[in-house]
């Protein structure tokens, strides 16, 4: 009983440290690509929109994470990509507040397009949890003090993917959840956020996957973590890893998107699921092939869902039935996922072209574009009215001119 009360206090304390304007994880505060803020810059201008640009070493396609006035980002460097960097920049001027470096303890081999700094960190507002493709996991406070670390390949020697890993960790209360999917030793684990020790560990299908878990409340109000890989999607309880439902359709690359108790699965079809506590099989609300798909994950904005294909077709559909509303051709190719605030959506193609799209218009309308001139594979972040985008060598803050 005492432990339960203490846990609740910790969760409440952690929640009190996240601000509405923060971007604490991959695809934002709700993991659906949408900021709680009202707006994005409508106009981007090379001379006036770039508030600052900071240099980064080596490689990196993780997204920035923003807590208050701090911007966190990771990189990997060195001939073997075995130098792992965690940076904290001041949001105001891009000056470096601190940097920590670590040595990779797991395998650093990846396919050439990706790199060791592929997963995006997650923060609960007090701590930063940083995972690399080498399965090195670090917990730091926001001032860069090390709280704990793990070497997951050291503990589970076959848990690696020669193409590289990219699934980002998520945090639910005092449980940090990692999804390490590969051909040889796949697992998901819930770690004690205070110590990094396993609370639970779950065998997963032996297949490659790069999808980030989705945290959501199902129809019955139960907080669930959905784990996706190619064979399907599994719902687990974050506290103990208990499997509560499973579904036999999934995807290895784009992540799940959740909202209002509905889980959107980007499999061969785009599928809306409604899990609830009464059934071990989620109810399938609809499925469609008309919304397209690719590497990027779907964005959920109110009653609409947005998907960017690899070739750059942005498609808007209705969440109620999957009906396609409109499509807008953008310049591709795309690897990253769209983000949005208010009715403005931001997408960045692999060539570094940033586009702001007004999705309140009947067919969508490109409001502005800015060519950053570098290869960009990362999903942008939004905080305090600004956009944060990184390439291998740069981190930019874009603001209203």
């Amino acid at each position: 009983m005492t432990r339960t009360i203490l846990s609740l206090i910790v969760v409440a304390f952690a929640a009190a440290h996240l601000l509405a304007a923060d971007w604490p994880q991959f695809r934002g505060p709700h993991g659906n690509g949408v900021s709680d803020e009202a707006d994005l810059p409508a106009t981007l201008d090379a001379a006036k929109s770039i508030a600052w640009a900071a240099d980064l070493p080596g490689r990196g396609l993780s997204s920035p994470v923003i807590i208050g006035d701090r911007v966190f980002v990771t990189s990997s460097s060195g001939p073997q990509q075995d130098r792992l960097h965690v940076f904290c920049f001041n949001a105001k001027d891009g000056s470096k507040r601190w940097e920590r470096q670590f040595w990779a303890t797991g395998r650093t081999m990846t396919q050439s397009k990706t790199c060791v700094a592929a997963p995006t960190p997650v923060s609960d507002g007090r701590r930063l949890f940083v995972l690399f493709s080498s399965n090195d996991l670090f917990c730091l406070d926001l001032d860069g003090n090390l709280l704990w670390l793990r070497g997951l390949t050291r503990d589970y020697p076959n848990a690696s993917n020669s193409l590289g890993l990219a699934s980002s960790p998520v945090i639910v209360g005092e449980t940090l959840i990692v999804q390490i999917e590969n051909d040889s030793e796949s697992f998901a684990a819930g770690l004690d956020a205070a110590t990094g020790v396993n609370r639970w560990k779950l065998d997963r299908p032996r297949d490659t996957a790069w999808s980030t878990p989705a945290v959501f409340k199902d129809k019955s109000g139960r907080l669930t973590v959905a784990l996706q890989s190619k064979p399907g999607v599994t719902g687990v309880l974050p506290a103990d890893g208990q499997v509560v439902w499973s579904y036999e359709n999934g995807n290895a690359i784009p992540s799940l998107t959740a909202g209002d108790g509905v889980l959107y699965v980007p499999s061969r079809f785009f599928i809306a699921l409604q899990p609830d506590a009464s059934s071990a099989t989620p109810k399938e609300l609809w499925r469609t092939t008309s919304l397209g798909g690719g590497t990027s994950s779907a964005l959920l904005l109110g009653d609409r869902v947005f998907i960017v294909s690899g070739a750059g077709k942005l498609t808007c559909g209705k969440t109620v039935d999957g009906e396609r509303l409109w499509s807008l051709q953008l310049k591709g190719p795309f690897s990253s996922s769209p983000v949005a605030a208010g009715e403005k959506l931001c997408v960045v193609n692999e060539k570094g072209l940033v586009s702001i799209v007004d999705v309140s218009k009947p067919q969508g309308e490109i409001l502005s574009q800015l060519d950053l001139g570098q290869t960009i594979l990362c999903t942008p972040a939004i905080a305090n009215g600004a956009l944060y985008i990184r390439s291998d060598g740069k981190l930019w803050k874009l603001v209203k001119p």
Partner: protein
Amino acid sequence: MKQLSLAGLAALLCLRLCAAAPTDIAGAIKVIRAVGPEGRGNADASAAWKTLAVADAGHLTALLTAMDGTEELVANWFRAAVDTIVSRELGASKKLPVDELVKFVADTQHNPRARRLAFELVARIEPATAEKMLAGMLDDPSLELRRDAVHRVIADAVGVAVAGRKPEAIQRYQQALRAGRDVDQIQEVAKSLRDLGESVDLPKLFGFLTQWKVIGPFDNTEGKGFAAVLPPEKEVNLAAEYDGKSGKVRWANHTTPHELGMVDINPLCGQLKGVVAYGYTEFNADKARPAELRLGTKNAWKVWLNGKLLFDREEYHRGMQMDQYRLAVQLQPGRNTILVKACQNELVEKWTVEWQFQLRVCDHLGTAILPAAAR
């Protein structure tokens, strides 16, 4: 008020949950060095780390020394403390103990990673001192320091070559080739030497095993051959004949001409899918010694040394690179047997055709260990 209350409660909770931190550096180091698998000892280490992080710069070499004999997981704890101290001290315009750090770098008995870290600290404060140190690091046990030293020699060789002083350029490139351990540097130097008309024996330089006995194909339908204990795993009898996937199979000699020791099984067994083959070789060691077997393959594999399974991995066609897997072993004096199981899956895409492996014997730095007869 509400926030204050929450903060107070959290602080009380922290007091309740956090382990008592050692207040002395030596005690804190001991606690961190005791960190074990799966986060065991993390809570104590986290508390101990705070003691290290507030130490002054005078303790830097103690923290660097604490990395001696530790694995990199543990060393990362100390590295974070070093970074934290350095950042704070330099931010406060305090000085780092450069002389102590230089002495630490010079002592090659220390942890190579720690020495490199100390070197980088020296380079931040006194770049000229660091640059001077590199000149003597061509044979350094820190691969990162050695790499930079080799880079200097390569740059020198390029300059001499451009100036038309070919014999000097060759001499410098050969010096770089002897010292280099990183694959990319070695390949760069080998190309330069060949462009200058010199020959380079890369298989020997890397220590690739090029002479094999190969047998197959055995059945790997539905991937079941990976786990199956097939005849060569029970006994290596080079005169034996077995039932293979589509008929009798027997061992055949194979010497790979590939520059990086690639054993391509497709031409030997036919371009097949859903199959298993074995490669067998012997390595004559002049003495008992620690070594590494370094394997590269896109196929699922198992490797045995002297009949003992070293590691196995069931991953197909996710990429390959030289030294992809490093297997630490102890060679016995005289004859050592090496058996490689290479499995091919049943996918039909173009990128799943390769059925091959490369294997070399070297020390932990990547220095080739040659068989006794080849010395």
